């Protein structure tokens, strides 16, 4: 399943032949595409023993995919393997599943905790690697009836935690731990493996307090000193610069910079991350909008798992397209979801000066707002139902449309005919490709499903429209059409639009102003034609919030 790129010299031949020791890890011309869409192009870099490598890049730059390849996630093989070679100690390896990677001494700490709440630190660190004491039952009924040696496990744990240079009670339940302890427990679990040589940490500091983060960084340096190599993925560039020996910057699936960390500033790295040749990204020409305020948000907090919003305030002008950007997991998605009442939220939101109740979707919709969710299949659509259902449903429930009275208005029934007409109207307008408006939504392509979601929103003729990740996972043609449609509704019907997207270029191409969200707060609001490095800075935890 390893596609070897023909005629490529080995990496360290290409690099100066005076490589003293074999590099621990060497990625050589890694490339990967998912059904044609290229996500990694010829990625090559090396990692020496005991080095800390900072891997930075926007969402979709390919960090995740790269780590998946390194870790032998099955999804890679299922999608046709990858090109190039992964070498450990000069040996080409091809892991078919994460357990192989573990055996080869690669440990991964994922962003979300994989801990068992009701278990103690020890039990979690030793999970499925418990130290067993065989007995007659083992002989008769198999390994799993061996008794655990808790005492030994406990000492092992203490040793592992000690290595991190922190103190965690080995008998503390994870469910009662502060978030920092959980993170350390995860790391401890990885380094407890005898043979662990390479540790991959994906945004380890994202959930930590400042102090906790500092402790963690110290711990990582300690590990590196012990000779464990580390790949450190973080959007907090100052942290990256603080501990990394070298920084690899990915953009659009290629390595744009592979340099030693020393002597670079956050600003440099930020600009490498987001920087594109200005030709590609032509920002919209500024418009002069009357300053009338359409919508304002004060001290909004939203408890949306993975996209927590801590304290966000902004104001949107009438007829404006307001962009909200930022890296994944920073809370930008939480904003619309919270305001629309889909997740527990607090604070104030005012539409044309009228206070909107929190956590009550109905009245928010009644007030004239509409929302195109980023979770198309989960929230956006009734996948098993027909297109006209999908388009008309919300309008029916909110506005009581598409109902016809029967028995002299005794009660009202679905007006299938009106629904079909509506559906066909939008199918025409947005060029939705489908067999008929009776086709179940699940059979449409991603792009057309997205158009369907838009139609659903437009059918409400909203005063203010939230669109969340409108172009995620759809092809270029559909992208353009979706954006044009939004622009069209904004320009011609004066619909105020708040657009949330991880694609900076997209925001810059359509929005009048762009707010960047970082760690649950608005890091800053910029004009679309502002310097890219500034966007980068705001995204990298260097924003105004601190």
């Amino acid at each position, binding site marked *: 399943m390893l596609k070897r790129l023909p005629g490529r010299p080995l990496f360290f031949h290409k690099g100066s032949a005076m490589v003293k020791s074999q590099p621990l890890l060497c990625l050589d011309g890694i490339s990967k595409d998912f059904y044609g869409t290229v996500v990694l192009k010829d990625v090559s870099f090396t990692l020496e023993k005991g080095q800390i490598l900072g891997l930075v890049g926007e969402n979709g730059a390919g960090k995740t995919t790269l780590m998946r390849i390194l870790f032998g996630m099955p999804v890679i093989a299922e999608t046709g393997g990858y090109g190039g070679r992964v070498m450990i100690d000069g040996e080409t390896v091809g892991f078919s599943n994460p357990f192989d990677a573990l055996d080869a001494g690669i440990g991964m700490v994922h962003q979300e905790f994989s801990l068992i709440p009701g278990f103690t630190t020890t039990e979690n660190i030793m999970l499925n690697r418990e130290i067993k004491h065989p007995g007659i039952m083992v002989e008769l009924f198999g390994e799993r009836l061996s008794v655990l040696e808790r005492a030994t496990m406990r000492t092992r744990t203490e040793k592992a935690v000690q290595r991190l240079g922190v103190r965690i009670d080995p008998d503390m339940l994870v469910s009662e731990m502060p978030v920092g302890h959980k993170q350390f427990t995860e790391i401890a679990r990885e380094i407890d493996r005898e043979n662990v040589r390479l540790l991959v940490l994906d945004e380890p500091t994202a959930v930590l307090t400042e102090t906790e983060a500092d402790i963690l960084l110290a711990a990582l340096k300690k590990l590196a000193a012990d000779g464990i190599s580390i790949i450190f993925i973080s959007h907090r560039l100052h942290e990256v610069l603080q501990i990394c020996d070298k920084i690899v910057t990915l953009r659009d699936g290629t390595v744009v910079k592979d340099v030693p960390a020393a002597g670079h500033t956050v600003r440099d790295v930020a600009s490498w991350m987001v920087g594109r040749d200005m030709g590609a990204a032509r920002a919209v020409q500024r418009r002069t909008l009357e300053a009338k305020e359409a919508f304002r948000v004060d001290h909004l907090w939203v408890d949306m798992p993975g996209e927590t919003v801590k304290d966000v305030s902004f104001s949107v002008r009438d007829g404006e397209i307001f962009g909200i950007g930022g890296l994944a997991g920073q809370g930008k998605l939480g904003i619309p979801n919270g305001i*629309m009442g*889909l997740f527990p939220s607090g604070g104030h939101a005012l539409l044309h000066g009228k206070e909107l109740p929190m956590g009550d*979707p*109905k009245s*928010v*919709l*009644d007030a004239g707002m509409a*929302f195109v*969710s980023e*979770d198309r*299949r*989960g*929230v*956006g*659509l*009734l*996948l*098993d*139902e027909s297109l006209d*259902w999908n388009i008309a*449903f*919300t309008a*029916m*429930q*909110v506005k*009581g449309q598409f*109902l016809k009275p*029967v028995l002299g208005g005794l*009660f*009202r*029934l*679905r007006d299938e005919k009106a629904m079909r007409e509506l559906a066909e109207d939008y199918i025409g307008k947005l060029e939705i490709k489908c067999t008929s408006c009776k086709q179940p939504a*699940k059979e449409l392509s991603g792009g057309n499903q997205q158009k369907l979601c838009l139609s659903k929103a437009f059918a409400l003729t909203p005063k203010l429209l939230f669109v969340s990740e409108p172009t995620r996972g759809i092809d270029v043609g559909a992208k353009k059409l979706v954006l044009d449609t939004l622009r069209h509704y904004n320009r011609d019907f004066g619909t105020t639009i708040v657009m949330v997207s991880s694609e900076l270029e997209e925001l810059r191409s359509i929005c009048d102003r762009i707010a960047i969200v970082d760690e649950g707060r608005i890091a800053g609001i910029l004009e679309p034609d502002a310097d890219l490095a500034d966007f980068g800075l705001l995204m990298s935890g260097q924003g105004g919030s601190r």
Partner: protein
Amino acid sequence: MTDAGIKGRLVSAVRDFGWPRVIIFIFVVLLFLAAPFVGVSVSASLSDVLNRFGQNAVMVLALVPMMQAGAGLNFGLPVGIIAGLLGATLAVQFGLTGWVGFLAAIVLCLPFAIGFGWLYGRLLNKVKGEEMTIAMYVGFAGVTFMSIMWIILPYTSPNMVWGYAGTGLRTTITLDGYWTRILNDFLAVRIGQFFIFPTGVLLFFGLAALGMRLFMRSRTGTAITAVGSNPDFARAGGVSADRMRTISVVVSTVYGAIGILVYQQSFGFIQLYNAPLYMAMPAVAAILLGGASVNKASLVNVMVGTFLFQSILTMTPSVINSILQTDMSEVIRILVSNGMIIYALTRKSKVTK
């Protein structure tokens, strides 16, 4: 279209419908085919099946709204049945007979059904995911609790209370002289020697089904379907899932109450105390047999399912027994009904997420 292609499509269609259903369907057909050879009159059995169909179909119908709302199989149907029993006993108590009595029973049971249904619905909303288990025990608890009530409630009608004690209702109360088979015999048409077409009861089922259809096509009904199909979508659409689920439970309970009344008039007796305990089972089995999945059910499922299931109940005792010379019908019934439920529970729910 190549032959292989057609075959493939056929197989996939069958798989979609579910092998067990197909097998059972074939089984039923065979039963009817075999009947004449073992001296069982097809026409008699057929009219028998039709009677039982009318007798049970409304109770099966009662399951539809909750399944559509994603609240699962209503094992708590006895809650509705209790309401029905209250209606019936009250009507008898007031000495109402004939159509008046039957309609009065329906009217009298409605407030109970709505009340119970509402409480029951509120409860189920608190336990999303475990609805079915809890529904079952709520049903059991309700039935046994009512058993106490049957003893201590101050009923006096001599046709219902124990002769010697003068208080406390009997376990079975005959409806003779009240509304025995009032629907079954209404406009019943005798064709040939054995075949009687129970127009009335089928008509009544038709009405009930129509009512359900209209409800499911109303704004609320639409919302209920959406909630069952994707709660998050419904919520984003400003629909309160809990409210819709509660409504669906209430409707289900009301239909359950009416269902038992239809059952009784056809059966000729009111059965109290523990009789309702497991009455949900055959209904559930029937609708699943009709091709419903745990969270999608249609009127077609109801009709097909009830017909098949009742055919099995009617035919196996006569046909199978005369073939095997032993009474296997009970075992077959248990295997078919519960097997069907297990099959549905273990099948991945059809809803795409």
